[in-house]
């Protein structure tokens, strides 16, 4: 991995991609062989292009993790080291503000994570509490203003944070919510709520009306039916929407930047600036911090990929 390193790899990969792209595009032209051979060539071409695309796409993430584990000397080495030869985890300790034997400023990393966790989980709860009844109503009742409300939700998802941040700043100043986590929680919920309602509505619509009818005939109230019969049936969607709302608030930047002036209130998205250029940027610590920030997002996608995908597609193009 020393000399025959990335450069060679990149060059040979480049040759592979140009070859396969051309052979795929013009496959119809110069294929004279039987269909079986042709299908084999095509499958291989698809595989090769996909592999290359995946490697290129993942390289930044791989680099982030790899850098976070490198000792300083390997970070600044040319040619770059792909896989750390002498891995260390002091960068993670220092990203969390744990004591290390490095001569660095103390950064309250763990506090940023705690603040983000408080903001994100509150946003998740508030979003679910507000979204469930609204989505239920939109799926079950016909009423005046329903289409308008749906349109409002679709458009609300598109509002730029910068547009909201200025008037909300004034509002929160007046209400005395400036410099509280609550201000960020409210604003983050506004970001997550429209999408949450749209997705949950789709899930409610897949539950047959007859289920409720049965419950109502048995003398249960609508709320009881919703709580005991319907919600357990859409558990998977509730989890996906909850996690989605959590992640929205977990990485949110502009509200936190504008509403929280006190350092002890800062979440991870603002805390990360502590690592940029104090004396010089501590790249390994910053990459360790970034890796820790990215973990919930990657885990969520690993476990909830199907729900996320169907949520996005049903909420935007279909």
């Amino acid at each position, binding site marked *: 991995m020393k000399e025959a390193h990335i450069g060679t790899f990149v060059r040979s990969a480049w040759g592979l991609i140009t070859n396969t792209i051309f052979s795929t595009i013009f496959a119809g032209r110069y294929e004279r062989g039987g269909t079986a051979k042709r299908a084999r060539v095509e499958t291989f071409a698809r595989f090769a292009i996909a592999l290359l695309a995946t490697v290129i796409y993942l390289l930044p993430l791989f680099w982030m993790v790899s850098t976070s584990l490198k000792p300083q000397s390997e970070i600044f080495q040319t040619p770059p080291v792909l896989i750390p030869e002498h891995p260390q985890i002091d960068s993670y300790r220092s990203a969390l503000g744990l004591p290390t034997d490095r001569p660095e400023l103390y950064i309250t990393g763990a506090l940023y994570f705690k603040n983000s966790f408080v903001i994100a989980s509150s946003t998740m709860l508030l979003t679910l509490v507000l979204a469930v009844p609204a989505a239920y109503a939109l799926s079950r009742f016909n009423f005046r203003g329903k289409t308008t409300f749906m349109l409002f939700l679709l458009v609300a998802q598109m509002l730029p944070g910068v*547009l909201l941040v200025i008037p909300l700043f004034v509002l929160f100043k007046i209400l005395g919510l400036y410099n509280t986590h609550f201000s960020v929680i409210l604003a983050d919920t506004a970001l997550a709520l429209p999408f949450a309602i749209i997705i949950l509505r789709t899930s409610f619509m897949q539950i047959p009306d007859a289920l409720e009818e049965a419950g109502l005939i048995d003398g249960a109230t609508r709320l009881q039916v919703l709580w005991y019969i319907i919600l357990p049936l859409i558990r998977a969607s509730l989890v996906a929407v909850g996690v989605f709302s959590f992640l929205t608030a977990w990485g949110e930047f502009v509200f936190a930047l504008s509403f929280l002036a006190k350092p002890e209130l800062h979440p991870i998205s603002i805390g990360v600036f502590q690592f940029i250029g104090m004396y010089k940027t501590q790249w390994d610590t910053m990459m360790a911090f970034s890796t820790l920030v990215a973990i919930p997002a990657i885990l969520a996608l690993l476990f909830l990929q199907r729900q996320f995908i169907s949520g996005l597609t049903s909420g935007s193009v279909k």
Partner: protein
Amino acid sequence: MAFQSTADNIKDLKASFSRGKLTAYFYLLPSGLFLLVVLGFPILYSVFMSFQKYTLETLVSKQTEFIWLKNYTDVLSDPAFATALKHSLVFTIASILFQFTIGLGLAILFTKAFPMSNIMRGLLLSGWQIPSVVTGTLFLFLFNLDYGLINFVLTSLHIISEPIGWIVQSDTALTAVIIANIWLGIPFNLILLSAGVTGLPEDVYEAATVDGANGLEKLIYITIPLLKSTILAVLMLGFIYTLRVFDLIWIITKGGPGSATEVLPTFAYRLSFINFNFGRSAAVSVIMLLILLVGAILYLRAIMSEEKL
């Protein structure tokens, strides 16, 4: 089945639904009120502020002064606004062009199964939910002049002869944030376009193959025309989401160096929270909102043509 619905209880259900109109509003009240206060109010208040002389003093004294369109004429005659608008358009169009092309290419690639196709498709989505702050710091490092990976790869490929100070040079900074944003947007485009592409009828392609069409011809004459409304919806969503990007740019360059990466959102933010000219900043926001609204209308028309809401 116990829950089999008969014509009768459907009728009952309909009756109870019309009685339930009040119930519906009751269920909608919490989110309706919430969205009204936290989304509706800010929009209206932005418009209101944009007609006022609204500065830090206003915030303290609460004495407002209506100057009507003065903020707008000031903004529109400000060369910094023209620059931000130009950068916004370049950033948005370049990002979408690449995200969309790559997304569509990958979506078509994954229509047929091949070894490990599911795993690779999953891996290609892994960055989808990663916070922009991570993408920002990551690309800050990748674009580093001396030990950034991007300079190393490009010099090994002989695409550039010596390392470029991507983020610190004003002629390359916009390209750098565009590249970071393209990376960020690939999963989104891949997912939405995959949903469209997999829904296309197989037999049309088989017929075309028999007729001797190659991959490129199939793309131009079959895939794109059949996916017209999906493509329009994805492009418009991309336009809306890209035009409003603030965090990624603020983290990587803060709009700099100079004003090399200043876009409308960073310009509006700077006017508010650095120059404390809230009124003028609101005018920029409102102009941005109007541009987004055009995109939103085109988007809604695209999805309405597919299915009624």
